[in-house]
């Protein structure tokens, strides 16, 4: 395997990690206003991701940095091409973090209501826009011969891409509901489990529609043929498994199953693209590939050693932090004020 392929896989891994981890904390932020009966409930939901969300977000920052280092052209084309959507994502991530950290600092009602809005929109907007962005990449963008995006914002907001946004929004929300069921107790736990079970069928419908229309809209499925193949099948099976596990009240397993759906769904997208990273809808000659978009072999070699050393260490201590905070968050844990 050449260095370019290794780095393509590594960047895919970083995005997969990001979608899996931040996926559920987006979901928690989206559900917070709907599954909470009172102020204590709202604080319980936020505290389920309290120690985690920031480190989850670093997966995105690392993916961005790794793209910059390993595939500067991919980074440059994508970030300048998705200019306004990324601006919205940035604003969302800013107000979301501030919502988390500043919310309980003051008791005034308007302050907390504002923070709730920050948390909800700050979670929902990126959960939606990442789906839009990824769908657009898979569909191909008007990229010219100088590797630059030549389209407009309107081109990015086409119906199929918006459907892709709906897919990520609903999947992350479902994933978040199941995470909440693992981290809460009592009535709250029952409520989020009800929400998760109610969400499965609509989520399935959106997914099905997205997959079916995918045959028409993307090159991805042309290559696959009518029988989707192993990886898409795993995605489908994982999604169905989530339903089965919810029926037999195994919510931990159901969480793993929605996680697997997100992981394998993202793998399908990346695997379908390879060796192209940003297909051009104008001409095949203008595609950005792992080869014409990459850094020098020396840069990739150095970065490989760095990743080899640090990624296992990161996984170890991040995993440990989940172990330290494995206890469920109860209503009693919230200080009265």
């Amino acid at each position: 395997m050449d260095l370019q392929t290794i780095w393509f896989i590594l960047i895919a891994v970083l995005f997969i990690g990001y979608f899996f981890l931040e996926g559920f904390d987006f979901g928690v932020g989206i559900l917070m206003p709907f599954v909470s009966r009172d102020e204590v409930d709202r604080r319980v939901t936020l505290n389920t991701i309290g120690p985690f969300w920031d480190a989850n977000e670093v997966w995105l920052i690392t993916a961005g940095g790794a793209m910059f280092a390993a595939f500067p052209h991919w980074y440059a084309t994508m970030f300048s091409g998705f200019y306004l959507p990324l601006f919205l994502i940035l604003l969302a991530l800013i107000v979301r973090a501030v919502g988390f950290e500043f919310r309980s600092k003051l008791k005034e009602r308007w302050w907390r209501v504002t923070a709730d809005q920050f948390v909800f929109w700050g979670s929902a907007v990126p959960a939606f826009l990442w789906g839009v962005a990824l769908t657009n990449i898979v569909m191909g963008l008007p990229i010219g011969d100088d590797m630059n995006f030549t389209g407009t914002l309107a081109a990015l907001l086409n119906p199929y891409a918006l459907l892709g946004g709906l897919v990520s929004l609903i999947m992350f929300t479902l994933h978040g509901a199941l995470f909440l069921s693992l981290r809460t107790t009592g009535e709250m736990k029952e409520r989020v489990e009800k929400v998760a079970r109610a969400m499965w069928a609509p989520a399935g419908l959106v997914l099905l529609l997205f997959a079916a229309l995918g045959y028409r809209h993307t090159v991805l499925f042309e290559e696959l043929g009518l029988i989707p193949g192993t990886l898409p099948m795993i995605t489908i099976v994982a999604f169905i498994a989530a339903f089965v596990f919810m029926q037999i009240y195994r919510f931990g397993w159901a969480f793993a199953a929605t996680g697997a759906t997100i992981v394998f769904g993202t793998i399908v997208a990346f695997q379908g693209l390879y060796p192209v990273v940003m297909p051009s809808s104008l001409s095949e000659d203008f595609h950005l590939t792992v080869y014409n978009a990459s850094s020098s072999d020396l840069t990739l070699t150095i970065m490989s050693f760095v990743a080899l050393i640090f990624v296992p260490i990161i996984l170890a201590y991040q995993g440990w932090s989940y172990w330290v905070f494995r206890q469920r968050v109860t209503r009693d844990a919230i200080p009265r004020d």
Partner: protein
Amino acid sequence: MEALELARWQFGITTVYHFIFVPLTLGLSVLVAILQSFYYRTGDIHYKRLTKYFGKLFVIIFTLGIVTGIVQEFQFGMNWSEYSRFVGDIFGIPLAIEALMAFFIESTFLGLWIFGWNRLPKAVHLACIWLVAIASNLSAVWILMANSWMQVPVGYEIVGGRAELADFVAILLNERLLVQMPHTILAGFITGGLFVLGMSAWMMIRKQQTEIFLKSAKIALVFTAVASILTATTGHDQAQDTVQTQPMKMAAMEGLWDTEEPASFSLFALIDQEERTSMREVRLPYMLSVLAHNNLTSEVRGMNELQAEMEEKHGPGDYIPPVAIVYWSFRIMVGLGFLFIIISIRGLWLWWRGTLEQHTRFQKATIIMMFLAFVANTAGWIVAEMGRQPWVVYELLLTADGVSPSVFESSIWITMIGFTIVYGILAVAAFYLVYYYGKQGAPEEQEGVETNLHTY
């Protein structure tokens, strides 16, 4: 305004704003870790209360550092795509390592520290805040490595119009990095030290918990005194490196139009960039030769000569940075730096005399210093970045050639206005929270009862 100017304004606004919070967290994280170490070693509950007090303020400030940092990483690609294509091979490495080596540690262990007071053994919990402090400062090392390469490009070769990596060790040991990194980090330590000193002084003026805040004031005084002296010496090293590697920046810092031998140091000047002259100058003879070369005779080259040389090398163009801004920013930074040394030594003297807690005038002065630290940081950053113009990578890539060709002016207007408004609101919120929690004083703590720093 054109897209280029808009993109530059946006980068300037977002970077200066980001750089308000970052230096403070560099120093404050270390000071919180020191306070908690004092508690760990002495068992004195006062230090635990101080750790909680400054820890809370640290997290408020740190949050803004994080959220504005994401913007920094994204906007290279968003507004400066041609720059990103040109430098990615080299510039991307420290950015990626920064995330892998520093950001993951900071974010994970900060979560463990905030929420882990009652879950982790004391020593492990203390290790968490030290890891946050070390990782914060490590991240500074990597991002300054990226910046040093923009100032003094080394270890590269130009292949197909891009800078490709040729020698990684040269980038790790870039001599600019070796002077710029300690100078910047130590300036962060001053900022953190003056913050702890200023807040402690505020409490002492209010006669609130004087006994407790005298302890943090003393720690901050030692910390600031050492950091401010070392910032001056490393700053001197950096200036001497600039003479060698970026003579144009040096000449702009000194408002030196014509080459002088020996060179005099300018104390005051009205600079006319168009006419390329300075008026009403007050100059100290020989001093610039001393500062630049450590002797009384050496030559320091002026901007006119350097401009001619650059035109010869790079073709026609204006290679002189905005002189007045660079000249005055440099003087503000250096002047404030000396002020910080004086104030911290004065504080140590008052401590020696045993009058630190009663000396209201000194306490008020430290509160002003706390704010002036941010002015000094900003001025220093402006010298480094504006002094490099019109280059984005010194002598390799013009700023004008780095901008994204595919982004519309209207889009940049939207993002610039959006960021400015949101950043403005956040600044007010953060300032108010620091004021609100600062005023409350150190929280009550009991021996043996552990509560988290905060609950969401």
